[in-house]
């Protein structure tokens, strides 16, 4: 009863109320969704973050004591996780040192990783034709090349590249909209299965 029926009933009820809050123009439903249910969800997510944080520490402590490689990464991970936690507990989120960590370490680090992502994407794109010479791969490389060219050299040849860019933009937008519509239908049906209690991702089948 408590393992199967109760979670399913709660999930269905909450899901239906939140859905109705979006699709029916009733103010009390919107209030219930935004003020009560979503706030509860945020509190639960905060607890989830706490549990995940403890798990992260536990995993890296275990890695330190095992015979694996990358022990230094785990040590660094534990020290920085604990250090930032202590810093935020002492100074608060807006404290000067916590802000310093954010602006001097986290943001530059993330930016560097994003730059690496861009480079790996370019390398992967260049290698695609070596791995497979299909029509799809050729179209992918040609379109990627046109987009790069029109972005870089647009100011030099605005007339020619402008037309090329517009035609690619139209195709790209149409493709993306088609993709997003398909995803929306998938989301709707997956959600419906949960709302109707057919799928129970939160409890035993």
């Amino acid at each position: 009863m408590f393992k199967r029926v109760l979670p399913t009933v709660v999930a269905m009820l909450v899901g239906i109320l939140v859905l109705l809050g979006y699709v029916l123009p009733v103010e009390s439903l919107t209030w219930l969704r935004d003020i009560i249910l979503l706030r509860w969800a945020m509190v639960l997510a905060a607890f989830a973050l706490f549990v995940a944080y403890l798990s992260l520490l536990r995993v890296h402590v275990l890695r330190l004591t095992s015979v694996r490689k990358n022990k230094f990464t785990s040590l660094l991970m534990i020290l920085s996780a604990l250090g930032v936690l202590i810093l935020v507990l002492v100074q608060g989120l807006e404290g000067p040192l916590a802000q310093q960590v954010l602006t001097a370490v986290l943001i530059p680090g993330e930016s560097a990783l994003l730059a690496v992502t861009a480079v790996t994407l370019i390398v992967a794109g260049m290698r695609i034709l070596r791995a497979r010479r299909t029509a799809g791969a050729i179209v992918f490389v040609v379109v990627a090349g046109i987009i790069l060219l029109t972005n870089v050299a647009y100011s030099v040849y605005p007339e020619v590249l402008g037309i090329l860019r517009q035609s690619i933009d139209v195709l790209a937008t149409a493709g993306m909209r088609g993709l997003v519509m398909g995803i929306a239908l998938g989301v709707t049906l997956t959600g419906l299965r949960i709302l109707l209690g057919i799928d129970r991702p939160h409890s035993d089948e």
Partner: protein
Amino acid sequence: MMNQTLLQLMALGVILVAAIAFALYGIRYRDQSPPTRPVPVFPGLTDEVGRVAEEGVFVHVALGNGSLIGDDAMMSVAALQGLSGLLGLSAAYDTPPLITTGDPTLYLLASDWMRRAYVRTGSADLYKSAAVQFTAASPVTYAAMAATYLSDGGIGSNVVLGAFTQEVTLLTTAAERRGIHSSGGTASPQGLGALYPTLDQEQLVMGEDMFAGSAAVSQRSSALASLWTQDLLRWLVIAGILGTALLSLAGLGGA
């Protein structure tokens, strides 16, 4: 600009049409397998368990950053459903995959799914909580951190399935560099753009096919009915778009 109330009622209409079509199809094929299109990638993911078990290595499953209280919640649930065969077989062989997530709520759900897979095989005591790991809360850091796990050794297959954007390339290129076989998919255009050059087309789940995992793996009539309804609605949307365009061309309204 369209009225907000009208938009809300249209959304309700789509949901009702979906629910009715789903119910009718489910009733029609209650006790038999309905005809649907094949989605070959998901059963292939389950086969990875046997392959890596023979080699004495593990599968790495990257579930991405789809929070259960955000826009990507259903994508994360669909990814787990598509992986249910892999999780079940891993539990049966006691070769649990290393599952990494970039969201704490998804971490809890994935842990629960893995634990329940062990419970179903009657070996709950063999479940190790370290099989599921939360690596970082930011997408790029998560992908970079999970990529370092691939260099630890012991990973024979890399499955990336869930909410990803361009950062997924860090994971797939790290796997490629070490000769680890990768498969998976995502729904976002940015993520697909990053996955397309690094995964074979037969190993890539694109867009709405992400939500076909449950049907492909479980073959339950309810999941197959859901997939059929999804396809039916897609054709209705296409017909609607074409109809609106034709009406617009004929000067009978439209944007």
